[in-house]
């Protein structure tokens, strides 16, 4: 296992994490649709069958409930399954298994049966995908007690969050922002990222805080760059762990600036973004100079490729929301 820092895409970092986890722990099994010889439609499992054999990384019949249900049984029997849902919207057939069994089994059995399963879900838009390939489905999982839900925004985080998810004794829904799969950045396997449950400040700033996760983090960082040109200093917090949520880091950041905008791709109604606004408002009310704003997708089914740019929260919308944070009251 090489440990030198290298430049990797997020896809390569995830692949590396799977490979390292499988090499280290013989109870880690990878399966799903096209994950074997093909290496997955996004190549995240590339080379794993060749390296570890077709018992350790294998293709299943096309049935998502079957994949997750089988993972439940394997986990009951001492294994650590890592399963791939080919795309966000194709995980829905597995919803009953995820909600009624993956999430609840530890609790139902009074802690006697834990299910160390990782369900990898490539999600969200920004890649010009046709319908059913671009859903931001994180709220369904985040709303379900018993599931840990994480989403990386950098290759380094992708590597370490996935390693930690596989090592976790609890089931993890691992949401992979598709549009960030190909961007390269430094990955150092030897220097762990902050753990599950921790948010991080990606960019310091003093005037307002942008709170984002997954695919929206890059948008927030771009918006902060643009704002800096105009002399406004925006802090960017990457939530990373939707469940458990890091109230401490997020609230400390918001208190330091007194203004906040939550940026997320998913439709805003009853969303993770709404939850973040509520939590921040409940905890930081007296530090806030303006109501916390949301920049999210509209409450519409994800648009066709030629219209998706109207749905995705872009830099301008973020900057407009920042402009709306009642600066004149200062």
């Amino acid at each position, binding site marked *: 296992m090489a440990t030198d820092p290298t430049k990797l895409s997020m896809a390569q970092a995830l692949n590396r994490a799977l490979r390292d986890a499988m090499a280290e722990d013989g109870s880690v099994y990878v399966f799903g649709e096209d994950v074997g010889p093909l290496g997955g439609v996004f190549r995240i499992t590339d080379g794993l069958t060749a390296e570890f054999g077709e018992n350790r990384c294998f293709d299943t019949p096309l*049935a998502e409930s079957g994949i997750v*249900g089988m993972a439940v049984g394997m986990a*009951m029997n*001492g294994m650590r399954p890592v399963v791939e849902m080919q795309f966000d919207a194709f995980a829905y057939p597995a919803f009953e298994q995820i909600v009624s069994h993956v999430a609840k089994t*530890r609790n139902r059995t009074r802690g006697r049966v834990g299910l160390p399963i990782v369900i990898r879900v490539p999600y969200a838009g920004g890649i010009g995908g046709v319908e059913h390939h671009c859903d931001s489905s994180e709220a369904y999982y985040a709303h379900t007690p018993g599931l840990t839900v994480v989403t990386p925004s950098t290759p380094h985080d992708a590597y370490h969050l996935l390693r930690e998810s596989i090592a976790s004794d609890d089931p993890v829904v691992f949401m992979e922002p598709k549009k960030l799969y190909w961007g390269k950045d430094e990955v150092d396997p030897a220097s762990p990222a902050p753990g599950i449950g921790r948010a991080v400040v990606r960019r310091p700033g003093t005037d307002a805080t942008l709170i984002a996760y997954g695919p929206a983090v890059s948008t927030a960082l771009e918006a902060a760059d643009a704002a800096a040109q105009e002399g406004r200093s925006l802090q960017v917090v990457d939530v990373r762990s939707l469940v458990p949520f890091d109230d401490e880091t997020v609230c400390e950041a918001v208190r330091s600036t007194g203004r906040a905008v939550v940026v997320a791709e998913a439709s805003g109604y009853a969303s993770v973004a709404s939850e973040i606004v509520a939590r921040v408002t409940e905890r930081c009310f007296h530090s806030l100079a303006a109501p916390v704003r949301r920049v999210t997708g509209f409450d519409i089914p994800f648009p066709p490729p030629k219209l998706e740019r109207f749905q995705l929260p872009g830099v301008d919308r973020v900057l407009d929301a920042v402009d709306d944070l009642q600066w004149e009251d200062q």
Partner: protein
Amino acid sequence: MADAQDLLPSEQPVRLLDETGRPVAGAALPFPTADRLLAAYASLVVGRRVNDQAGALVRQGRLAVYPSSHGQEACQTGAALALAEGDWLFPTYRDTAAVVARGVDPVEVLTLLKGDWHAGYDPYEHRVAPQATPLATQLLHAVGLAHAARLRGEDTVAMAMCGDGATSEGDFHEALNFAAVFKAPVVFFVQNNEYAISVPLARQSAAPSLAHKGVGYGVNAERVDGNDTPAVLAVLDRAVAAARAGEGPQLVEAHTYRMQAHTNADDATRYRSDEEVGPWVARDPLLRMEAYLKRKRLLTKARRTEFAERAEAVAAAMREGVSRDAEPDPSELFAHVFSTPTPQLREQAAFLADELSREGS
């Protein structure tokens, strides 16, 4: 690729006893040994007593609800007795008698229906999965567990139970298909009791029989008279042996009848007549088995008394255990959601504890 003909079930359900308890001529399978038949009879008696006692506890308000397997005890017994110690049972809400036959403490089994917690027993202790309520979902767990065992070179077999209605659920089909593709050592055991709550079998399936569904997946299937205890045992024994020998998954459909309403909360008179139920009373699996054993002079008076006493002791333990008034601990609500409670759950646990302490003061 298996020959389709070889996978199809017999023309008629396998029978070893006729309705009066006499051995049928030219039976397809040999009788189980006398010892095994006596053990099965003992388990039938306990199963019936468990069903009746649980029904009584519901009427007394001690249990919230009970889905009875009254009339299906031959299937309940067969499922448990066909397994070796290292095997696994995946039961449904209706399979309490099978879970008890497997050795689980009936009081722990009733935790769910008493309302103290969800699954009350340790699945690893007797290798019995929690009783599944979401229909057919547990069948996939059986496939995964069996596949994992096979990957490790163990000869574990998983017995996955479900009802006739559950065979319409997607997970039933995915489970059979996955099991066949991975050659997982699973015995799918369908108790066809003719009803899914109010809906009769004809509304679930237009197939010649539920066992015929096996062939579409390459799964070997058989059908059996589900009220004929020796036949159920013989067919399940053979299926378990085949699964263990690496011949892949097996599907067994038992033809039986749900003698009581779906649960105590259901009113069966709204969808079926007494005339329909009547003939099934005479097909009672206990009566049939008793008639056979008596004729064979295997069932002495002393044995009958012994079995009845054993069943009575189980019923007494159920009554005693269910009336123990230890209240479930609300702080446990937060303890098992994750391996370590999240900061948010710790906050919520503290909130509830505070609320309770103010209530108490």
